[in-house]
């Protein structure tokens, strides 16, 4: 089963990375993205990128956007391009097909985020040469590694569920983007509309919290949400149903 999962992931990654036909053409697209997330943003943020853990938050957009796009293309796109039925007629199990697509989306989103963060680190060091070697705080490394992975998993599993219900890639991507914006923006908007004294109480309460406990709790919650969405996607990913869709 693991070999089958990796085979599907290999195909999905290869299809996305080499979609322009050659590695050279695809690299041009990737280089542009690295310029934005690995050079432009770190230059804007400056040395705070490594001093303030919160400064790495822009990197969180990378897995959100890439993993959602990839899983939408991998499921709704295969159905739209009439390649899914042939895949379903092969020896692969439903589970290995779905897991392969999720693994590919996670690897793409999370991997791209880690590489962007590394390129960003090099950029900050080059731009601030003479101040010694600048490195991320340990908490930032945990956030990038652990939460980046769990976040990419959440988006990939949720995206799979959305893509299974969407008739086209475009519809799946639209639904995913709406969901992501809702999850990210709603808490911010809610905070904005709260009365000032309530907001102060929230900030005071947050300052008094044990961040390690919160971090572990959040990671557990994220992992549970990942598993829940994965189970739901597996229940929905059934050959006979997909054929009739």
């Amino acid at each position: 089963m693991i070999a089958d999962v990796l085979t599907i992931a290999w195909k999905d990654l290869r299809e996305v990375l080499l979609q322009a036909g050659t590695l050279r053409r695809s690299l041009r697209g990737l280089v542009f993205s690295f310029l934005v997330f690995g050079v432009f943003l770190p230059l804007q943020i400056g040395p705070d990128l490594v001093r303030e853990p919160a400064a790495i938050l822009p990197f969180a957009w990378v897995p959100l956007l890439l993993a959602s796009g990839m899983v939408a293309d991998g499921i709704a796109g295969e159905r739209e391009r009439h390649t899914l039925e042939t895949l379903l007629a092969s020896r692969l199990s439903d589970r290995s097909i779905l897991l392969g697509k999720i693994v590919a989306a996670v690897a793409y989103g999370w991997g791209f985020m880690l590489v962007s963060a590394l390129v960003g680190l090099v950029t900050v060091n080059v731009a601030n040469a003479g101040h010694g070697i600048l490195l991320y705080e340990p908490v930032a490394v945990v956030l990038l590694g652990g939460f980046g992975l769990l976040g990419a998993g959440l988006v990939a599993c949720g995206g799979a569920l959305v893509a299974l219900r969407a008739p086209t890639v475009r519809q799946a991507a639209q639904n995913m983007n709406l969901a992501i914006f809702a999850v990210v923006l709603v808490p911010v908007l809610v905070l904005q509309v709260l009365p000032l004294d309530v907001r102060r109480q929230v900030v005071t309460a947050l300052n008094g919290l044990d961040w390690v406990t919160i971090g572990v709790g959040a990671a557990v919650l994220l992992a549970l949400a990942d598993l829940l969405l994965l189970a739901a996607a597996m229940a929905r990913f059934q050959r006979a149903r997909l054929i009739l869709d």
Partner: protein
Amino acid sequence: MSDCAIRTTDLTRDFGKLRAVDRLSLEVPAGAIFGFLGPNGSGKTTTIRLLLGLLEPTSGTATVLGQDARTDPGAIRDRCGALLEYSGLYERMTAQDNLEFYARVWHLRPAERRERVRDLLTGLGLWDRRGEIVGSWSRGMKQKLAVARALLHRPALVFLDEPTAGLDPIAAAALRDDLTRLARREGVTVFLTTHNLAEAEKLCDQVGVIRSGRLLAVGRPDELRAQARRDRMEITGRGIDERVVQLVGTQPAVEAAEMGEGRLTLRLRDGQDTSPLVALLVREGVAIDEVRKGGADLEEAFMALVGTDA
């Protein structure tokens, strides 16, 4: 394994009120190229999906390569290849990558993968273009590649759903030749659906005719032709009018008589002597140019079967 690659008994599939496959009982011998003929919407694709275990039957049974399609569909798919309604190729990937992917799916070892991909692409005249993106290819080339993909893991049985549909006559003939050659060389059983009668006649050892989900006839193409030959008589000449058609239609040997395209076509009852019919026409003043008993090709046999059922 028995000498039957496929055996179905009263296989039925309903979609709501629509019965797509209706009590289909069929046997396909191992090693044969079997043509499943029928007009669009007759249940051919649904039958393939049932045989591959992609859909569950409403009732009846299907055994493919000795495995029950309802209880062990995975084992069936493990030993079958398929070219379904669409080629199923990844158009953003190269031809070689498409085959490489499916070779991995079927767990071919790296050395075997390389050899098999090279062998099939060379055999189909596609080796020099293996590095091209499939999306830029003609439909004929894509279908060839899809056939290669279906045969990649040396399946015991391959399903081909209208493999030449949408191809120009030259590309279709080329694909037919490749298909026959590869199928014979690999010793694979082929279950092929088509509504192209000429194709079925050239390719198939056996054909089955399906309409509205019901199997109307099964046999070798020449057997079906012979069946049509026995049952039909065509007469051309002058003086065949409505009165003559009605008169002939009342004769004991004649089941039905109709006039069309300048000739009188009679559907005959089994075992009846037809010489009195010719004498009758002469007596009625018909100047007969030609009497043709039988001479039907597969298309006429097919039309007779489908028409009879309609």
